[in-house]
């Protein structure tokens, strides 16, 4: 069991368009160890969300998407799995949290019903009552005190922060070993976002859940992640322990990034206007950021 929990090797992705194939990912290598919190950081459009979606198999039915590369998860090759096999991992072994919790919840079903459905994917025979108990339990874990009321509400009746807590509980209730968090809570206001991220960090630490934390907020990443990948236009340009990346950025793009963002307070990554040829320099891997056996 020396292999990491997730190991993506040479992931390429292109979309067929009317102008021919549009390449999005140019051979990504990413690995995550069990329980590790890894951030994937880059400007909007750099290919962060598509990476998460490929891991979940969400592009398998999209005929316009072409992708290749090995994805090893828990000693199994995701890229060789059947649709059904991959589907059976979703929500159980791998789960996902999205940007806007309120629009990620179905407006026509109560939270309780959606929670029940999540629990059913792991245990199809579970009874409503048993599911309700577990749901209440987990809502308590995300610091929701009036769990009954929340379960009996629709998402549009709750605040964004409340919905985010619900999403976190739903994502973790089936004890996945990997959580994909795609800019979680970016739609929320800053303090609420910080609160819910703290909660999430506590819970994933407790449960030893690994996280692929997608973000374009450096301040948040610094708080949250053990290790960081910087992605630029579909290429990883730098990777390493969080403090190495922040204290000692090596790649020209990362340096430009750090210079553009207030270091302490963080904030979103601005579009960096003056693109430099040097942003395409080869990847820089800090010591300790590599996987055992990776070329340094």
């Amino acid at each position, binding site marked *: 069991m020396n292999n990491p929990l997730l190991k993506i090797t040479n992931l390429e992705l292109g979309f067929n368009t009317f102008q021919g194939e549009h390449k999005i990912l140019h051979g990504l290598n990413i690995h995550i160890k069990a329980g590790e919190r890894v951030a994937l950081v880059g400007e909007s459009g750099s290919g962060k969300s598509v990476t998460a979606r490929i891991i979940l198999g969400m592009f398998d039915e999209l005929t316009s998407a072409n992708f290749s590369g090995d994805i090893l998860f828990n000693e199994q090759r995701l890229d060789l799995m059947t649709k059904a096999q991959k589907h059976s991992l979703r929500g159980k072994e791998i*789960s996902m949290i999205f940007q806007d919790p309120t629009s990620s919840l179905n407006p*026509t079903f109560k939270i309780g019903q959606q929670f029940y459905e999540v629990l059913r994917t792991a245990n199809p025979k579970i009874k409503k009552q048993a599911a309700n108990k577990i749901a209440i339990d987990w809502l308590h874990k995300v610091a929701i005190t009036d769990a009954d009321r929340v379960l009996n509400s629709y998402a549009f009746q709750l605040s964004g922060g409340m919905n985010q807590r619900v999403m976190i509980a*739903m994502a973790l209730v089936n004890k996945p070993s990997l959580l994909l968090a795609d800019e979680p809570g970016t739609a929320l206001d800053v303090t609420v976002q910080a609160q819910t991220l703290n909660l999430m960090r506590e819970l994933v630490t407790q449960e030893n859940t690994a996280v692929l934390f997608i973000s374009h907020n450096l301040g948040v990443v610094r708080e949250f992640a053990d290790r960081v990948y910087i992605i630029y236009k579909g290429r990883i340009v730098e990777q390493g322990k969080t403090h190495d990346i922040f204290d000692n950025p090596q790649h020209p793009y990362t340096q430009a990034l750090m210079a553009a963002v207030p270091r302490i307070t963080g904030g979103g990554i601005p579009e960096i206007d003056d693109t430099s040829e040097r942003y395409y320099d080869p990847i820089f891997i800090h010591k300790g950021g590599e996987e055992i056996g990776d070329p340094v």
Partner: protein
Amino acid sequence: MNSVVKMLLKRIGTSLVVLIGVSMLIFTIARVIPGDPARIALGPNASIEQIDKLRERLHLNDNIITQYGYFIKDLSNGNLGISLYTNRPVTTDIAQFLPATLELVIFAGFFMVAFGIPLGIIAAKYKDKWQDHSVRILALLTVSAPSFVWAVILMLLFAFFLPLFPVAGRIDDQLLLPDNITGFLTVDALIDGNFTVFVNAIWHILLPAFALSLSGIGQAARLTRANMVETYKKPYIEMAQAFGFSAKRIATKYAFKPSLIPSLTIIGLDFAAMLGNAFLVEAVFAWPGLSRYGVQVILRKDLNAIVGTVLVISAMFLVVNIIVDLLITYINPRIRLAKGQ
């Protein structure tokens, strides 16, 4: 007061206003189309005196506003006047013929929902695959011809060339009718415990109801598909997929319910429109319903019967709309909860 009751009362109120408007309109139209109702009713051999007497009895010599006054006065007593065609109270006629039409329309509405919506779901779930294309072709076909054309085609195919179904009527002549309780033959047969009549009535209603529903099936399928495809783009469906909800549960539940809400209004309107389309389908299948009665009384310029028939059909239309509104309120939590505040 309960908010749903409040809304219901409001809707009934506006419906009554609409009905009054409709009654004025049809009352006037029926009287300005050419032809003397009294002469048509009494036939070519009637004397001037006889005709005059009938005109007097019908208040036809008064001005139209006075006539309308008489009409409203009678109506408030639940009296729609005498039909010159059947010589019976119009209310009696309507009570006899309306249930046959309603039974037909309800069956057709059931077909529309039972076939149209699942077809739409399948088309959306298999968007751009052969299932979707088949449904699209089917839907285009069904809406490309009006229901009475379908009635003729279906009758030719399945009652004539392939004599699987009866050609006309609600029931075989030699069968004894069950007690008239609801006027719906299928229901009355069941109340009576008469299974033979029940099966025979179903056998008779299938073809005309299907003909009447066909374009509705196509509409419902296309509408459901379009709304489902929109819903599939929503973040909460991506969430459901990412969380491993089964594709079937998503199609039939988590994507279906949000899609049904915008579809329902139009499906309801289509259903109500069947009341009108039933006119021609009833004619093709010799269905003894209100529509056939309506055609007869219009041809004879049977004033009371025309006004009565139109009013009843309009009332049905409004009732269907209110029911659809109630359904939407029930299904859409946003509306339900907003009204509950």
